[in-house]
């Protein structure tokens, strides 16, 4: 089989098998899978609120997916999107709460977003620097940095910034709130989907150009594919390790901005809910391709929100199993696909 067909077939197969396994589990839990899927479909794509929810989740997932996919072009496995997301979220909330209320909205939003991206990028760069300077494996470094990020944000929240008797920080100023589609245009009624979704599509497109159409990307992919040859070709592989990690972290930070500035308007403990890890599956399903990522994030967005809507029939725990199994299947199939190639 040629590799092009394989690239389409493998994700498709993994989705189909995930569907089959989920049906089985739902049936075992004593429900009719067809009914459940119908309900999910209706709740996600059938109503404008539900669709807005999917778009909102998809946006974060695209961004954390990019956080994994960009370093992956240099064959770096960034497991740390979750930590980068946390740092970005905290930075966005802090900046948003401290800015003067008189600042023009565009400026305030930009400043908050920028601080989120910087925080995410710095956090990822730490792992990059450890790799370049001391040869520390990036998988281990990013996992550890996830724990540290959890610790830092948790400590800062509970000991310094939480509003008494809550688990969240002060609300950000009104001028740093990213408008929802609802407030801006009346679409997607009441849903958290906000204008950062548009920015995200643009960013994915830009990154696609950067990776596949620019000289920078040409060097970057070469450094990932054959590091030794890249050295002969005068390519600075260390620089690409750092920039790809930096860009990845910045994307996670942008994802945090979507949640904090577009929806929650403050930092709350546990608000990221492991989305950073789902990003790994999103990136793998899309073969780390920035444009396919949109599709794969949409799928996982549907799954995530759809799972919530059928809570009344299927316990949350069962749905957690289904989601995790789907991710596992995706990862296994993409590994298998590699071998077949």
């Amino acid at each position, binding site marked *: 089989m*040629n590799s092009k067909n394989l690239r389409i077939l493998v994700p498709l197969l993994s989705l189909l098998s995930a569907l089959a396994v989920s049906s089985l589990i739902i049936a075992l839990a004593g429900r009719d899978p067809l009914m459940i899927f119908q309900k999910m479909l209706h709740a996600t794509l059938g109503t404008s609120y539900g669709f807005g929810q999917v778009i909102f989740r998809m946006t974060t997932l695209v961004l954390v997916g990019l956080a994994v996919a960009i370093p992956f072009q240099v064959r770096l496995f960034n497991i740390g999107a979750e930590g980068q997301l946390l740092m970005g979220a905290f930075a966005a909330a802090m900046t948003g709460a401290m800015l003067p209320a008189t600042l023009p909205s565009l400026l305030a939003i930009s400043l908050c977003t920028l601080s989120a991206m910087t925080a995410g990028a710095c956090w990822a760069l730490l792992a990059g620097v450890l790799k370049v300077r001391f040869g520390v494996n990036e998988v281990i470094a990013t996992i550890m940095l996830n724990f540290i990020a959890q610790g830092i944000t948790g400590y800062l929240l509970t000991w310094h910034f939480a509003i008494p008797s809550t688990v969240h920080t002060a609300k950000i100023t009104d001028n740093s709130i990213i408008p929802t589609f609802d407030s801006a245009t009346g679409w997607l009624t009441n849903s958290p989907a906000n204008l950062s979704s548009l920015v995200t599509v643009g960013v994915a497109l830009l990154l696609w*150009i*950067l990776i596949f*159409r*620019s*000289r*920078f990307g*040409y*060097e970057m992919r*070469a450094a990932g*594919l*054959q590091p*030794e*040859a*890249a*050295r*002969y*070709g*005068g*390519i*600075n592989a260390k620089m690409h390790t750092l920039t790809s990690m930096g860009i990845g972290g910045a994307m996670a930070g942008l994802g945090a901005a979507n949640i904090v500035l577009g929806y929650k308007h403050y930092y709350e403990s546990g608000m990221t809910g492991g989305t950073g890890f789902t990003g790994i599956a999103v990136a793998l399903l899309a073969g780390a391709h920035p444009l396919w990522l949109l599709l794969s994030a949409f799928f996982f967005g549907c799954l995530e929100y759809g799972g919530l809507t059928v809570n009344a029939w299927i316990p949350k725990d069962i749905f957690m199993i289904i989601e995790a199994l789907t991710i596992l299947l995706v990862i296994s199939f993409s590994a298998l696909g590699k071998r077949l190639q």
Partner: protein
Amino acid sequence: MGIAVRLSGVSKTFGSFAANSNISLSIEEGTIHALVGENGAGKSTLTKIIYGMHQPTSGEVVIQGKAVRFASPRDAIEAGIGMVHQHFMLVPELSVAENIILGHEHTWLFGSLPLKYAKALILKNSEAYGLAVNPDALVASLSIGEQQRVEILKLLFRKASIMIFDEPTAVLTPSETERLFATLRSLRDKGKTVILITHKLDEVLAVADTVSVMRKGEIVGTVPASSVTKPELARMMVGRSVLLRVINPPASPGETILNINRLRFCTPQSEERLRGLTLHIRAGEIYGIAGVEGNGQNELLQTLWGLAPEGSVISGEATLKGQSIIGKKPAKIALMGVSHTPENRLRHAVILEYTIAENLLFGRHREAAFHKGIGFNSRTIQRFTAEMISDFDIRCTSPERQPLRALSGGNQQKVVLARELNRPGISLLILAQPARGVDIGAIETIHKKIIDARNNGMAILLVSSELEEIIALSTRIGCLYKGSIRHEFSQEEVALKREAEHEFEKEIGLHIT
């Protein structure tokens, strides 16, 4: 004697391209059967079919009288077929004996490996076939020639009776080649069948019993090796007479371009690899370095291209037009006007997943002529690619879509040479094994281009394990031995001695061993 391998009507297509078409061939048991042909003629593809790595699109493969359809090399090994690849498949961290039994342990999970039995068998086989190698040595510590012997021992351990060698001599020194041939002969005398792919026609005549010539995916003739001459074979391959030695008009060198003065190189393991190497190369001359591999060639090349491993200590002088090269990075050195074709092209000179067009750009992608905006100018690149492909006769179907991986070995080499010989504004060209793996027709073209480059005033450093190539091309020759130039032949000497090539080869041989 029976027929070891019989192919009837075998075809193999990749997409719409026929790499092998309707091939019928019988290989007799107990013979050495050579396979020759131009780059891209389909030799590797054909042997990969026999070895089960490719499945034929149509046709029948019969091994020792039995029709077979291998799904993978595993089946072929089962059927008594073995293959020595050009890139060895050994685990450097394991010992020779461990490597040999790898995959054939025949033992329970926690049982001890049958090392003793294996070692005895290895010793027996090494003696019988002249494959001397210490079974306890780590593979990492072996020379290329020894590693090849381990590969052959591996096949013998698996009781292979049909052995395929894809360009085994490309990486060997002349004396190692002699040794390999002795082994091949003794294998044949013990009834094994040997299939040998090579581009060196002298070798075919020296060792093979039968030779088949391939052209454009077909077999154009099978003849006893004793009944043909080298020019005849060459004509069968290429379809025209080939100039077996390039015309090398006298050079008129100009100013000194590269000046190397008492260069010393200590590896991070503090082994001294270059000991006061001194040489200079002038514009418009080719300086050939003759020498057995491992006498400092690698370290010299690393120094000149800024790729010495971290921790090596370099002292002395290496200047390009007065500017020091030592300690500079490859990109910087390229910018100073240096071009380099590394010896190991697959590892160092190309990105296998990139297309042919993208590879023709690799390392030169910083040249402004190819740029447009933040990306590349596809129109310019298309024109450049087409020009390179026709100039160097690179055999491919669609350069903008085909990954380099899909090219035959020799054509990959042509891509690298096309790219490096044409760098604009260069004054020094460093060529390591430029003709490795290319067919004789292409060697003719490549050698002509190298002489052209020289005539255009380039200084050229040529490192090659082929004395023939060194003698044919060089203006001056330096004999490298244990890290320094032990003897240098002047321009007059080389011009004179080139006429009696055999004697000259022998004389050089004395200076490098």
